């Protein structure tokens, strides 16, 4: 991959190519094995829930329920790959949610209200991300501290703005982003009113996020900074700009997910999003992204969010008590990360 490798002796080159091919075959085998394993697990679980788990309505339910977490987790992935962390996203969901609800309340025109609210939500989130990132890149403050401060400030501001009361949203266009359906003809094929807009927004964010991270120069810079920030700086990467952008993106995505959440609930509440930062970190970590930075993927994060969402859904379908659910979820996070670590050690030796 790097220029240095091509200089190496050709014999070594072919040998490494062979080894790489072998590794790829092993990877393919593993994927096929994993696939068969997954099919069996899902079939068993589907049976245990009397076929409710894989019913089209429920599959869409799960995808819709993970939309908010998956979207903030995409931003969180970028931040974590640069070896940072964003603890403020949960509070930003509350703050941008009440700001959007307030904007909608003061603009009765559906179109104007919608436009302004979306603008306010995304830019407020992005601005908060800027405030998160600036002390990190300019003064070298730990992101844990700056985003912890933002977590407190944003939550407090949300309560101040609303006097602690939720603001009801009656803008139908806005609510339909969180509640509505698209492609009704596609939905009728499987007996549902359509594909929930939330899911489409989430897939768009995941696809764009995955593309940016793997196919663009910006994405490669994000990995490079997380791998070795000093080396990245010395090789001419604009570390200041890339890192700051990552926090702004995370903040704006919190605004976007808040838009879906507020629309879905027809309400902007200062109490919403409590603990969501930890949920998003869980999705990122289960997805195989390293908290040390430099390594990770959006696809992994999406799978992490999907896995966590499926678990919650399954436990609800199986009537597992709420207390036990938290225990199971904690254990799954631990085991998933442990397995990933073991696999990685096995691969490198």
């Amino acid at each position, binding site marked *: 991959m790097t220029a240095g490798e091509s200089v190496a002796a050709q014999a070594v080159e072919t040998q490494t190519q062979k080894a790489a091919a072998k590794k790829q075959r092993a990877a393919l085998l593993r994927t096929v094995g994993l696939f068969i394993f997954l099919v069996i697990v899902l079939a068993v679980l589907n049976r245990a829930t009397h076929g409710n788990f894989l019913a089209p309505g429920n599959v869409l339910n799960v995808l819709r329920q993970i939309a908010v977490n998956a979207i903030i987790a995409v931003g969180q992935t970028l931040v974590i790959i640069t070896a940072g962390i964003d603890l403020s996203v949960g509070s930003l969901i509350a703050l941008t949610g009440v700001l959007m609800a307030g904007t909608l309340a003061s603009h009765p025109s559906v179109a104007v209200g919608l436009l302004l609210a979306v603008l306010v939500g995304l830019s407020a989130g992005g601005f908060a991300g800027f405030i998160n990132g600036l002390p990190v890149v300019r003064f070298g403050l730990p992101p844990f501290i700056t985003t912890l401060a933002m977590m407190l400030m944003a939550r407090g501001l949300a309560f101040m703005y609303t006097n602690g009361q939720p603001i*009801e949203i009656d803008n139908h266009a806005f*609510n339909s982003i969180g509640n509505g359906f698209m492609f009704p003809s596609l939905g009728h094929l499987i007996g549902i009113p359509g594909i929930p807009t939330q899911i489409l927004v989430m897939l768009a964010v995941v696809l764009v996020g995955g593309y940016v991270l793997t196919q663009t120069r910006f994405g490669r810079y994000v990995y490079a900074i997380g*791998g070795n920030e000093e080396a990245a700086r010395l090789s001419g990467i604009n570390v200041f700009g890339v890192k700051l952008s990552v926090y702004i993106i995370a903040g704006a995505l919190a605004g976007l997910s808040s838009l879906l959440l507020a629309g*879905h*609930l027809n309400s902007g509440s200062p*109490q*919403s999003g409590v603990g969501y930062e930890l949920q998003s970190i869980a999705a990122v970590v289960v997805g195989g992204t390293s908290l040390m930075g430099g390594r990770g993927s959006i696809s992994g994060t999406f799978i992490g969010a999907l896995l966590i969402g499926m678990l919650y859904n399954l436990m609800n379908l199986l009537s597992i008590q709420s207390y036990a659910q938290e225990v199971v979820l904690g254990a799954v996070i631990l085991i998933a990360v442990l397995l990933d670590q073991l696999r990685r050690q096995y691969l490198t030796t």
Partner: protein
Amino acid sequence: MRRPSVHAVRSAWLASIACAVVLAGGLTACSKSQNTSETSSNVSNTQSGAPAASSAPKTIGVSLLDLEAQFYQTMEQGMKDQAATYGYTIAFQDANHDQAKQTSQVEDFISRRVDAIILSPADSKAVGPAIVEANNAHIPVFTADIASTASVGSVVSHVASDNVQGGKVAADLLGNALHGQGTIAIIDEPEVTSVQDRVRGFKQELGAKFPSIAIVTDQPAGGSRKKASDVMDNLMQQFPNLSGVFGINDDSALGALAAIRSAGKVGKIKIVGYDATPEAKKAIDSGAMVGDPEQHPDQIGKLTIDQIHVYFSGGSPPPKLPVTVGSYSGK
């Protein structure tokens, strides 16, 4: 460093594609399984010759505001016991004050095709869309303790304490303790609708039965113990002859008690709270407080299940069912 990361990315994408295929496969597989389950229920219908309603055991999905709170735990027990007597299956979820979580739980109930849903909304307004989803799936929704005030969604029946009557109980307790004479204060939390009802009932009863007792002030303290204590400190400065206080919940009453205790006025200023929590009961037993209106969450739970039973049997339960609030004035 780079090579494994690219590798990880690729295998993760492969895994994600695998996942998508599985889900897609599931979509078709499940539509099949759905058909079979439907036919099997048809078979059972024809066999028993009775509507499915009476043959299969009914399932009720419940999502309550906060299952860590004693109040809701007692309500949960009341529901469980009553559901058992009717032979209903019942599943409980903790909304943990998060409306998004509760909405997800409702969606999962719909996926399971439960026969009825009981909610104590996490957010009286934002619960609306969840109720609409249940309405669209033709699953009846009942609320217990907290009502939905959303402009959308229809609820069959709401079962909750009669807080106006509970306020009257508080007025009787305090009025009798003061022998119909004196000046009192209310430590209030006017943002909460159930508290508004309590205070309304309290004032009505006091005006009707104890006209010589004057309410000199009505101070908000957010239902918080610390704040209630601070408010009480100030009230004792402002009104040295104060003879009684009504705290709209036990935290307000116990906060007032803390201040009264520091001022050495225990027994001189009569205190009535609300809820009869174990801590408040202890204070009442020791004579530091007069008494408390006592809600019966187990009754709320039991009566909610009763309304569902009425509904399942083809009757129409009342849209609102007030549950009588009792009185606790010591062992």
